[in-house]
């Protein structure tokens, strides 16, 4: 038995390699579909080929004859299996419309991919073959695909609701009543723009996979799922299925990406659990890629109307925003809340008065439900304000960077109370922006641009930028309550020092690619003075980590990581009492450095944590009233959101003959406060930037007017590969968060938030000499070429 020694590790801030990677890279990591589960039945789901249709009849007799097929269920057959409809945890307004939504459609399908029947078979091939043998008679109905059409209520999808409108959520902040309108009347400069956030498919590398394993006695059930939210899933499946919560255990094995798409309670999870209980046998399901594009939530899907008013210097005096949000056919777990997460950020990083008029109206369409997708609401908001700033600069005929400088919230103004009442705890936007400009060699690029973009040139240079705030670290529970969210925003952690001085950290966060095991071990290592490899991090199994609120919204470090630091503090507090007892001194006379307690002023009177851990385990000599063992648990509710920020810049070259856009340089300067592991921070920024570039240039869930998804596989839905994106140069400034002891902010979504407007402003800049002032996303070669054609044809269009 080796007792771990205590010594200072100074590990925070180092580029420690991720401990997650060797098993992932060698294939040793087990994803849900890798689990070997004897006797499991395979589920396949028959999906609607229509966006909107009545189900006239379903004939399953041929399917039942296929060898290996055990059962086929329709929505009607399972109607009594559900204690409640599928959950939506965010009723944003008291009068929000929420149509009942069940794992299988009952008499009407509402999007292509809606589940119609479920097959159970002893093997995957038979369950797949059975789908082809089910005969469904549909009566197709007119599909509602367009958001403005949906809003008109000409064709109402959920007849019982009487409208396609789910809710209108306003946020009107005025210093004096009517001051927004007045500001627009008085404004020297005004702009009014319309932007479209196309629908995006999150496209995690691992599609969803599920296995529900019932216990033979007592009715317990274990759900293995490729999910981001084992804890939330446990409560929600228990409620939806009417199973006592203590009988449900949820395990998320290795999870291959989520980006929000696995932050949900899905029909297939409920089907697997219900049918596993019914058949007293494990039931498993794995998603095909095309299913993933149709039956897993999509992201974005907004039309944004943005107006800015500004004075003669370009100081913004009022902001007015009207959003139409695309909910899709039903409300999933947090669908209606997504636009709200951006609602506070349409003034971006700018200092504006209390003259803010935001409102979002969300509608149902006959398309796949939307929900949180990396950034959720904030990329949309940032895109709108950054594009609008560019429009205002064009209107004023001044440089957009100069306009930003005139409006940035200044360093001295932090902590800054925004118009909304939210406090932006820290920031230095000018510093980050100037650093980005230096790294870009902005002056040099502008000079080159003058030389290159001459009349007749076919390769035009452009520079783009965006400055952002990432309101993240979800979230102070009280703020969530004010937004009508059904849960809190705290996070739980347990830190346990074992008798041999090895450490167990149990976290309520649920990593799916972020490297929490590495980062959380680093935090405990630094705090307790043990090597990071002696810290084990346990997560994603509700039997081990009973409490938690999981991973999304760049919350894991600023909430979950801070909880771990606090739990370490509690452990140290307790150890200190034991040390004082054993060293026969007062606890106040002890200092704790690098894992060892020593009496201030007499360093030879010392006890390492190892000795105390062992002593706490034997419990032979503990102070009066002190419990054995060295462990502590914390539930931490953050006092504020975390406010990472930064500026991204990029240089593009547009081939005006083909419309092709090439990114020559991409600079990301992000400030996420103190960095636990800069290597992981860079990885998060790289991945996020690539997803933002993907929205700008590549990705779009394209639907035809009948609601058929045209981009339903990876040759049509263009996820960029490494060969399609530029080398990304990252830089950072460090403005520690004053609200938590680690000084950390989230970084999971920053790249996605910054990147799309950076690329789009660059393209418009490149084409400005041709008269181009707007560009739809994705800026595909065809779209760019057409936009150039329209602009150069002048007024003729």
């Amino acid at each position: 038995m080796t007792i771990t020694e205590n010594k200072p590790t100074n590990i925070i801030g180092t580029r420690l390699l991720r401990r997650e990677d060797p098993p992932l890279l060698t294939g040793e990591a087990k994803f849900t579909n890798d689990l070997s589960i004897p006797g499991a039945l395979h589920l396949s789901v028959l999906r609607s080929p229509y966006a909107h249709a009545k189900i006239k009849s379903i004939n399953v007799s041929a399917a039942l004859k296929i060898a290996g097929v055990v059962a086929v269920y329709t929505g009607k057959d399972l109607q009594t299996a559900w204690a409640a409809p599928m959950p939506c945890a965010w009723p944003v307004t008291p009068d929000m419309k929420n149509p009942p939504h069940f794992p299988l459609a009952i008499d009407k399908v509402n999007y292509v991919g809606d589940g119609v029947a479920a097959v159970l078979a002893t093997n995957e091939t038979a369950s797949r073959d059975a789908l082809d043998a089910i005969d469904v008679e549909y009566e197709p109905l007119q599909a509602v695909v367009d958001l403005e059409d949906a809003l008109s209520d000409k064709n109402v999808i959920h007849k019982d609701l009487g409208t396609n409108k789910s809710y209108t959520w306003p946020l009107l902040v005025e210093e004096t009543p009517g001051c927004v309108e007045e500001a627009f009347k008085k404004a020297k400069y005004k702009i009014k723009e319309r932007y479209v956030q196309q629908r995006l498919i999150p496209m995690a590398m691992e599609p969803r996979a599920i296995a529900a394993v019932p216990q033979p006695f007592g009715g317990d059930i274990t759900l293995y799922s490729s999910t981001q939210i084992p804890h939330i899933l446990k409560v929600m499946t228990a409620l939806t299925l009417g199973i006592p919560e203590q009988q449900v255990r949820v395990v998320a094995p290795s999870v291959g990406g989520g980006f929000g798409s696995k932050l949900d309670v899905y029909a297939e999870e409920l089907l697997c659990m219900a049918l596993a209980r019914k058949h007293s046998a494990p039931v498993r399901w794995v998603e095909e890629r095309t299913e993933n594009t149709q039956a897993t939530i999509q992201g974005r899907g907004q039309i944004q109307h943005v107006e800015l008013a500004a004075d003669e210097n370009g100081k913004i005096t009022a902001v007015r925003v009207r959003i139409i949000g695309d909910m899709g056919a039903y409300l999933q777990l947090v669908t209606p809340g997504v636009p709200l997460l951006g609602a506070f950020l349409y003034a971006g990083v700018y200092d504006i008065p209390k003259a803010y008029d935001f409102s979002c109206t969300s509608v149902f369409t006959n398309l796949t439900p939307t929900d949180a997708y990396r950034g959720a609401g904030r990329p949309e908001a940032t895109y709108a304000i950054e594009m609008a700033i560019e429009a205002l600069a064009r209107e004023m005929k001044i440089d957009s960077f100069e306009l930003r400088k005139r409006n940035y919230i200044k360093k001295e103004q932090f902590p800054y109370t925004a118009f909304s009442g939210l406090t932006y705890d820290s920031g230095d936007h000018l510093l980050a922006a100037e650093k980005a400009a230096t790294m870009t060699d902005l002056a040099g690029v502008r000079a080159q641009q003058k030389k290159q973009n001459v009349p007749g040139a076919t390769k035009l240079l452009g520079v783009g930028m965006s400055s952002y705030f990432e309101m993240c670290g979800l979230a102070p529970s009280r703020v969530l309550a004010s937004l009508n969210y059904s849960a809190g925003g705290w996070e739980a952690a347990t830190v346990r020092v074992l008798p041999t001085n090895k450490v167990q950290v149990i976290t309520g966060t649920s990593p799916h690619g972020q490297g929490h095991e590495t980062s959380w071990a680093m935090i405990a290592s630094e705090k307790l003075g043990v090597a990071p490899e002696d810290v084990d991090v346990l997560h994603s199994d509700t039997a081990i980590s009973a409490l938690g609120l999981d991973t999304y919204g760049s919350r894991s470090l600023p909430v979950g990581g801070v909880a771990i630091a606090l739990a370490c503090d509690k452990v140290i507090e307790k150890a200190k009492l034991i040390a004082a007892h054993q060293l026969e001194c007062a606890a106040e006379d002890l200092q704790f450095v690098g894992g060892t307690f020593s009496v201030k002023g007499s360093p030879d009177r010392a006890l390492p944590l190892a000795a105390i851990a062992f002593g706490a385990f034997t419990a032979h000599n503990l102070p009066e009233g002190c419990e054995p063992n060295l462990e502590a648990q914390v539930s931490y509710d953050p006092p504020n959101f975390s406010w990472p920020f930064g500026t991204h810049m990029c240089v593009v070259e547009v081939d005006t003959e083909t419309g092709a856009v090439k990114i020559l340089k991409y600079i990301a300067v992000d400030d996420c406060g103190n960095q636990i592991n800069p290597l992981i921070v860079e990885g998060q920024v790289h991945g996020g930037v690539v997803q933002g570039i993907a929205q700008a240039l590549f990705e779009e869930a394209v639907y035809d007017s009948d609601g058929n998804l045209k981009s339903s596989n990876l040759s049509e839905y263009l996820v960029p590969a490494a060969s399609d994106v530029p080398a990304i140069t990252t830089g950072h400034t460090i403005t520690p968060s004053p609200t938590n002891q680690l000084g950390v902010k989230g970084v999971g979504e920053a790249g996605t938030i910054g990147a799309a407007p950076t690329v789009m402003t660059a393209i418009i800049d490149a084409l400005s000499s041709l008269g181009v002032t707007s560009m739809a996303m994705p800026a595909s070669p065809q779209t760019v070429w057409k936009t150039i054609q329209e602009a150069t044809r002048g007024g003729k269009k």
Partner: protein
Amino acid sequence: MIPAAFDYKRASSAAEAISLVSQYGSDAKFLAGGHSLLPLMKLRLAQPAMLIDIGRVKDLSYIKDAGNHIAIGALTRHMDVETSKVLHEHAPLLAHAAGHVGDAQVRHRGTIGGSIAHADPASDLPATTLALGATYVVQGPKGQREIAAANFYKGFLESDLAADEMLIEIRVPKMQGAGWSFQKFNRRAQDWAIVGVAAWRRKGEAGVALVNMGSTPILATSVAGAIAKGASISDAAAMASNEADPQSDLNASTEYRKHLASVLVRRALEAASK
């Protein structure tokens, strides 16, 4: 991702493959690299009852200097075409184009014969061999015949190959030092071309073929004819779509495809004339 049930036989020679296919008739399909056929089967868009695996017919994987032309066995993998010294010397356009097929995995599995037999207008090698004036050698129960590339492609995924015939060799005339260019326009480096152009030029002579500009690979005879008559490159390139009939899809409308074709043909001829 799970294909419909099928039977499977492995052939060890062309003769065996042809006798198997004659036996099973139109329900049977050859399986070469599988990189066009298997994706269709997994999506259940193709459901052959019998696969005859010719992937291991070793004596059909070769690249030989045959005097006037280079002879390429039908089962030669794209990677071998891409890296062949003989081709780099005598038909560099083909080697270069093979290097633009898909990604490295695809190029290690896919075969030149499979690519041509599949007759996908969006594939790179059918148009490239067409531009080069290649001849395809096919073998059936009654023996061998030669088909000029220009007569081979009949429609979308349709060729002159009979169901019981197998493509065994591709004969590519030596390029004799002609200038050449391969222009592949796509949104992601590893995608099929939205529009592609394979072109060569030697003084007053040129050969130009188009990828994804109709239901078959397209020989741009008007362009070549104009060059032969001494037209300028840009005048010739303006005729790029004369023989084409491109469709619209998510990436490109018919109009945009035609526009791209003329830009890319101009660029290809300019590069080939250097």
